[in-house]
């Protein structure tokens, strides 16, 4: 595999331990900006301007509104405003039965719907006490890894657009990644009948079994994308324009990131070696080794490096699992005829979490103790990683140019459907 030299050689980094976590020394920022700063306290002679970015700005990846206070081209204070895509999913969950909720949460993180289904059904299974057969756990893991690959492909394409088409001119990396993502959507169409909102996970297992010939087709597609990943690396990593826009931009302090509840590739790109797939195995991850990609750079370039490494790792995991899918049933419960057939056993709060492409995606669900409503959750809360990612903006953006803020925001990869729910 041809790789250009990375701007962050791993062997020269000094490490220290803060709160039991090994972090790179050079990323620790002593004086963080105050997100609640009164702009009257800023230099009195400065000619400040307030600029609204969003909620219809294309580079905000959805309907995020960011209020910027600018001193010339340099940002002084950042205030994000959410809620433009709030649809009341959690309230809707209090009206629908456990089986009916899966297609609703598909629309939360609309870039990786499989992850939402997996996360919420794992919580329901924990509450109800349903076992998942081994074959279903394999199918879930394969779907999750293919979905992670698709999500990171979409991120890489839109990240190229965020830099004003800096890579290859125009939107060419975007066109490349969308060509490959189409192959993955075709795979999901063969498996579930849907290209985007699958509704394939259910309480106790899956709805759709692997069709004949699907495993061979999927292995072939993954091999194609594995080759294309090398193309992207040649295309992007050594590109001087790409490095000029990303190296040293949007540096995230790992201690601040942990304090803010950041997880996933953004935390790993700050050198913290944490991954729920390895540390707290769910589905079939206890049967396969997961190599966690980390990078000590902490900037936008490191987040690119970590995500591309994760793409390769996803291809490897999915290919290995596809070769050994065990025989057996795909759902432990009988096919549900009535939506009220699946019932909770107690009213205690249960939490379960998975590693989504954006970080820890968790579901906290409380069962209903009233017997007549025991097929409906009492309270359902989705812990979205994207919401925590956006909390970073007031801390990392001050002092940067507007163009760097857009690159930083793109490198975090927030999905507004998941933030607002």
């Amino acid at each position, binding site marked *: 595999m041809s790789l250009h030299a990375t701007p962050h050689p791993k062997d020269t980094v000094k490490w220290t331990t803060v709160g039991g976590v090994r972090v790179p020394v050079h990323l620790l920022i002593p004086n963080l900006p105050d997100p609640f700063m009164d702009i009257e306290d800023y230099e009195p002679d400065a000619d400040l301007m307030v600029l609204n970015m969003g909620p219809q700005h294309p580079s905000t990846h959805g309907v995020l509104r960011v209020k910027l206070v600018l001193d010339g081209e340099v940002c002084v204070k950042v205030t994000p405003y959410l809620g433009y895509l709030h649809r009341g999913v959690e309230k809707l969950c209090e009206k629908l039965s456990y089986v009916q909720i899966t297609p609703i949460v598909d629309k939360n993180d609309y870039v990786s719907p499989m992850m939402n289904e997996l996360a919420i059904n794992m919580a329901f299974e924990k509450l109800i006490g349903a076992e998942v057969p081994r074959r279903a756990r394999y199918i879930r893991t394969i779907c999750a890894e293919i979905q992670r690959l698709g999500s990171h492909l979409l991120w890489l394409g839109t990240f190229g657009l965020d830099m004003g088409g800096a890579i290859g001119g125009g939107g060419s990396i975007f066109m490349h990644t969308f060509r490959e993502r189409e192959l993955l959507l075709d795979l999901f169409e063969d498996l579930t009948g849907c290209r985007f909102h699958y509704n394939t996970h259910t309480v106790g297992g899956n709805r759709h079994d692997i069709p004949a010939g699907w495993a061979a087709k999927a292995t072939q597609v993954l091999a194609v994308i594995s080759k294309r990943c090398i193309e992207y690396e040649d295309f992007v990593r050594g590109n001087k324009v790409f490095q000029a826009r990303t190296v040293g931009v949007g540096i995230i302090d790992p201690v601040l990131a942990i304090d803010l509840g*950041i997880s996933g590739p953004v935390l790993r790109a700050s050198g913290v070696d944490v991954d729920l797939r390895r540390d707290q195995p769910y589905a079939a991850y206890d049967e396969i080794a997961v190599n966690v990609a980390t990078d000590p750079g902490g900037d936008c370039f490191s987040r690119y490096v970590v995500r591309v490494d994760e793409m390769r790792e996803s291809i490897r995991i999915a290919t290995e699992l596809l070769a050994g899918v065990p025989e057996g049933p795909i759902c432990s419960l009988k096919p549900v005829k009535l939506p009220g057939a699946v019932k909770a056993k107690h009213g205690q709060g249960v939490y379960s979490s998975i590693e989504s492409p954006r970080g820890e995606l968790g579901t906290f669900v409380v069962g209903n103790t009233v017997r007549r409503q025991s097929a409906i959750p009492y309270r359902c809360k989705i812990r979205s990683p994207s919401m925590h990612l956006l909390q970073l903006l007031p801390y990392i953006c001050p002092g940067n140019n507007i163009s760097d803020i857009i690159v930083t925001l793109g490198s975090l990869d927030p999905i507004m459907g998941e933030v607002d729910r």
Partner: protein
Amino acid sequence: MSWPTDAATLCQDRFGLEICEAEGPLVSADQALALATALKDELDFRFFVHVVSVHYPEVEAIAADEEKGIDAIIGTPDHTMVHYRLRRLANPNRSTDTFAFRIKVPTGESTPSLSGVWLGADWQEREQYDLVGTVFSGHPDLRRIMMPEDWPGHPLRRDYAIDTSHFPWR
């Protein structure tokens, strides 16, 4: 689920709390800030997972009536239960210990904001205030985050009428 022994010992010995095996200890609002600081600074629970408020409307107490076959129901006042969940990332050991505690907040009272201990609690507490109506005292910026600022009521309360239309969508 079993909780980490050092955190359970800290709760029992220093704060005199009883550990619930499923949902963690029930903490009074006065103790919450001291417990949170001890968990973060002494036991390295630095990763903030979530805060969830669950609203429970008032339940009237019913005495048992053997003739009519009615079981006794213990009455509870109108309150919200606030669940906090934390994680310890000790990546050389690759352990991810999780610990949870909850605070019972009667309606009309407030619970201390823990966003000064974990910055990640900031927006989540705002969300719970917006949707469930739990007031977090000492929060630096307790505004609505999801709903419009002039929205009446808190939608995720159990007594919120969702079948009737609301301003401004009538």
